[in-house]
């Protein structure tokens, strides 16, 4: 965050509300089984609206606040650039078209659910979606190299978090409180110097 002023100066920004709307619609429509993978790919890698470090910090905030993470992220990003209007436009962009689509799909489902191919395709896409989410996680690990706590400590925290949520299936709220609280307390001490 310290290098933010010069980093912002050279980074592309969304130029208009309509660009914001269509960008979020486009990325929402690419996101099967969750949009987060696509958000990182589009906003960080393609449009370069955020760095990996900013993305991970914003996402941490979006994750801790209640509500769908990706929608929180869109709101925060739109609000940052165009105020309340930007937040509402980003929200509409990420929701409106996918909502219409899912309602249509739900009504069509009754007709097509009997085809064996449909269930198989869903299975296959589900497996790919899992891989895509994992890949985003691995990509973001890289951004922890610049973390004040040091890469190894970050990895250790991450590993405990994976075991708690993925393997032991503990409630997320508790995990965020305990592990997140530890991370925040350690960072707070480190930032004091």
């Amino acid at each position, binding site marked *: *965050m310290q290098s933010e002023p010069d980093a912002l100066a050279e980074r592309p920004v969304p130029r208009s509300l309509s660009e914001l709307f269509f960008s979020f619609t486009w990325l*929402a429509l*690419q*996101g*099967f*089984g969750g949009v987060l*993978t696509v958000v990182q790919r589009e906003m960080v890698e393609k449009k370069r609206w955020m760095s990996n470090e900013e993305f*991970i*910090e914003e996402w*941490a905030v979006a*994750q801790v*606040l*209640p*509500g*769908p*993470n*990706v*929608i*929180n992220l869109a*709101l925060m990003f739109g*609000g*940052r650039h165009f105020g*309340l209007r930007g937040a509402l436009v980003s929200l509409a962009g990420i*929701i409106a078209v*996918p*909502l219409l*689509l*899912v*309602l249509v*799909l*739900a009504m069509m489902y009754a007709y097509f659910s009997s085809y*064996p*191919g449909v269930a*198989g*395709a869903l299975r*296959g*896409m*589900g*497996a*790919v979606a*899992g*891989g*895509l*989410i994992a*890949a985003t*996680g*691995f990509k*973001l690990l890289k*951004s922890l190299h610049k*973390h004040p*706590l040091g890469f190894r*400590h970050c990895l250790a925290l991450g590993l405990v978090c994976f075991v708690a949520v*993925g393997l032991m299936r503990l409630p997320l709220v508790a995990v*965020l409180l305990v592990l997140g609280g*530890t*991370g*925040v307390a350690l*960072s*707070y001490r480190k*930032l004091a110097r």
Partner: protein
Amino acid sequence: MNEVLTLHMGWPEWLQLFLHYVVLSLLAVGGAITTAPDMHRYLVDEQHWLTDTQFNTAIAIAQASPGPNVLFVALMGLQIGLNNGGLMIGLMGALLTMLGILLPSTTLTYSAARWCHDNRQLRGVRAFKQGMAPLVPALLIATAWLLVSAYSNPVTDWPLWVTSAITTVIAWKTRTHLLLLLGLGGLLGWFGVI
């Protein structure tokens, strides 16, 4: 599917439904899907507004279609409306539940994010953002793990695991278009390869 519900909900009940989602919205730390167990308790077990199958189908369809996962909430509203006997009521139900799940959390997020941004130089705000950051990759990998481990039979499901593993490497190391990968996965599944 096998069981048909016919409901005659009045305004007080629709209001209850709306308020239930308003409350869940503020509890949905980590995404709306984390409150699905409570929705099941309320909608299926307590109020009998949805059948078990209808509940599961709503989640499955939302997972399989593009867009944020929270859209499964709209499908529950839709189905409750359809159970009340009409498409228009269904659409109203979808809007009502979406509004309920989104309004409180988005208002809170917008204000909190603004406050955080205005005070981003504060030590506490910086420590908060950076302290949570190491958990983000871990949570993503854990989510992927949960999705894949739902297919828990090694004999029949190993091709799915291999697919997920290969996808992880391709998407991590290359810039292959994500839709291309999903399309390939869909095709392999359609023809029963995986």
